[in-house]
């Protein structure tokens, strides 16, 4: 009996780690979720954040404003790429920052690769599984130590509008300012 249970555990790990890896993150109950699947034709926006990245944190109000404003056209997911972030820690983070968005863990960086993102906070915008924009949310931060009083460009919002209207997105991606995802194992 004991031996059987142990084997089942191993099988499950393999399943999570390999079989389901393609285009999926994990929700906070540990279920594999493909955020690009259930979109009913809407634009999909993945927003990559790190709990230990102060720039990610400062963007929370802007992320919430944008996700509310474009709720009719787009579906938003927060993606946490740090494999050491437990579901409990992420839940606490969502409550602390007042987020009302679904969150995914991306411990193997599958969504990071899919979205071509490098930094938190950056976003990846999809339609019909096609990546149409990846890069910064806006130009608020210039370097880690210099931020504008307010952003003067709005790349994420421009991309959502363009994709929703079926227009081509100018692929002039500018990387975000914040924390490197590649520093995470």
């Amino acid at each position, binding site marked *: 009996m004991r031996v059987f249970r142990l084997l089942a555990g191993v099988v499950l790990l393999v399943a999570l780690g390999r079989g389901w890896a393609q285009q999926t993150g994990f929700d906070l109950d540990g279920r594999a979720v493909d955020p690009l699947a259930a979109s009913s034709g809407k634009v999909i926006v993945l927003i990559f954040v790190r709990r*230990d*990245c*102060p720039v*990610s*944190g*400062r*963007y*929370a*109000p*802007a992320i919430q404003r944008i996700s509310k404003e474009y709720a009719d056209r787009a579906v938003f997911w927060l993606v946490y790429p740090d494999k050491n972030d437990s579901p409990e820690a992420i839940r606490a983070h969502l409550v*602390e*920052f*007042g987020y009302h968005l679904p969150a995914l863990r991306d411990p193997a960086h599958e969504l990071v690769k899919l979205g071509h993102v490098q930094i938190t906070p950056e976003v990846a915008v999809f339609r019909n599984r096609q990546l149409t924009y990846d890069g910064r949310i806006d130009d608020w931060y*210039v*370097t*880690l*130590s*210099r*931020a*504008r*009083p*307010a952003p*003067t460009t709005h790349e994420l919002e421009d991309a959502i509008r363009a994709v929703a209207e079926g227009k081509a997105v100018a692929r002039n991606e500018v990387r975000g300012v914040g*924390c*490197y995802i*590649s*520093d*995470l*194992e």
Partner: protein
Amino acid sequence: MSVRAYRPLGIAVLLVGGAIGVRATKPAQHSQAPASSQVTYNRNIAPIVYRSCAMCHRPGEAGPFNLLSYSDVKKHARQIAEVTQSRAMPPWLPAPQEATFADELRLSEQEIKLIQKWVEEGEAEGAASDLPRAPQFVEGWQLGQPDMILRAAKPFTLPAQGTDTYWNFVFRVPINDTQWVRAVEIRPGDKRYVHHANIMVDRAGAARKREAEPGAGFGGMEIRIESQVFDPDSHLLFWKPGTVPSVEPEGMALRLDRGTDLILNTHMQPSGKPEVIQPSIGLYFTPRSATKFPMLLQLENDARLDIPPGDKNFLVTDDFTLPVDVDLMAIYPHAHYLGKDLQAYATLPDGKKAMLIHIPQWNLNWQAVYRYAKPLRLPQGTTISMRYTYDNSAENPMNPNHPPVQVVGGNRSSDEMCHLWLQVLPVNFDRAQGDPRMVLQEALARHNIEKNPGDFEAHYNLAAMLQARNDLEAAIPEYEAAVRLRSDDAAANNGLGAALLAAGHADQAAPYLQEALKARPDYFDAHYNLGFALAQQNDYQGAAEQFESALQVQPKDANAEANLGAALAEMGKFPEAKAHFERALQIDPNQPIARDNLDAVNKAIQEQ
């Protein structure tokens, strides 16, 4: 008669020398890796991190994440390589110069290269035996349990979003007798969101009047504090991330009197969620009163700040020649978001130039007070020069206006400033020549008037200093100039009235004192002085009314009671007069007028 006009230099700001960081490890010989050998965390990187990062990047401190272990550092390795190469981290704005600062937080070129190489080579951990001993940090109050802890009466809730926020907390110091402070530790609330904080000493209860209710605090980036006596600000009490409180040099304790408030001016940045900020201040007392009296000198030229939109290199200067020898202890340059290149240098009497500070890329977020490693001797005749440039173009990302607009000097964060504070200790002076700080203040006031004849405060302060020296002939025209500039200023009108009164022109004094009372009906000094002026003109009824009004403002003033008694006695109202003399003596048994007059009035009553 007491003339109570004195209100010298307004602006207080600043810091107790902010020692920066805990030096837990010596600059490591470990970090000198031969170019050929592999760079490892344990051998090469940990010593740098322990010395230059860990004091802020640890629990409870300002750093947004910990940098205490290999895994901590690896988790931010590329980011660290980037921000050290750009010298954004560790935050240290001044360029290298001959006059070094205490606790410089600058990485060497070698250290920066090592970090680059470590990341390029794959961030190896290395041999455990190479890892130096971890830094030991003092928990809690850094200098031990303070003698007195002041906690902000009400917390401030920092909104989740918005621009930088400036808030002032007023701390009432609950002491009955004068105390001497040898050290101050500022705990700014949550260190992650407070960018800097400095304490102003308010000896006149000026700031608390701005609170909607006691303890509520008030907003504002820059505040001005007036004082009643010649008591120039002397200490720079400043906190920024990594600051470890330092003990004032021997003999330079800060005086705190009953009724003194400490105002903590804080600069905060929203974090993305609401934050509750409730600072506290720890005071460390010493039984030894001060024997050395530093003061803060301010160079500025805000009147020249009128920066056209698009101007990338707008220069503002000020040059002040020292009238006495001083030791320069600390320096604090200050501009807002358009500040670009800030420098100050000294030209010594022999023509030699010494850089005092040069910040090639100003960043308000990391402003700081810089203490010199060794005080810098600047002899009489040295000229201190301030050279600040401003970038009001769209290329300056910190520009608060988009698109840029004309910007002038002012207290709001969207206005500009060009201030340079220097903490100086006068040396080699002759006591017989008077207080050298007074000499400095007078020279500064004259300099400011020359620079800007419309500088109300300079005229006022110069007048007050001349008056304090009893040079009424010189003081009166300066007060007149101040009143011309601000005809409705209560203090200036009172000062002019008081000076005229002291010079024997009671008739000329009265209208100015009345003007002062129009501006500020509950102005004790003006009621008192007007009462005196009317008494001089034999209007005892009018005088009595003024002294009564003065007593309504300050019921326990022995001088006003004695003078009220005198006015009533002059009118023949002896029993009433007697009552006031007795009250004056209850308040102050040594009040000389009341004592003499009480004898006289008793005799008069007997004679009746």
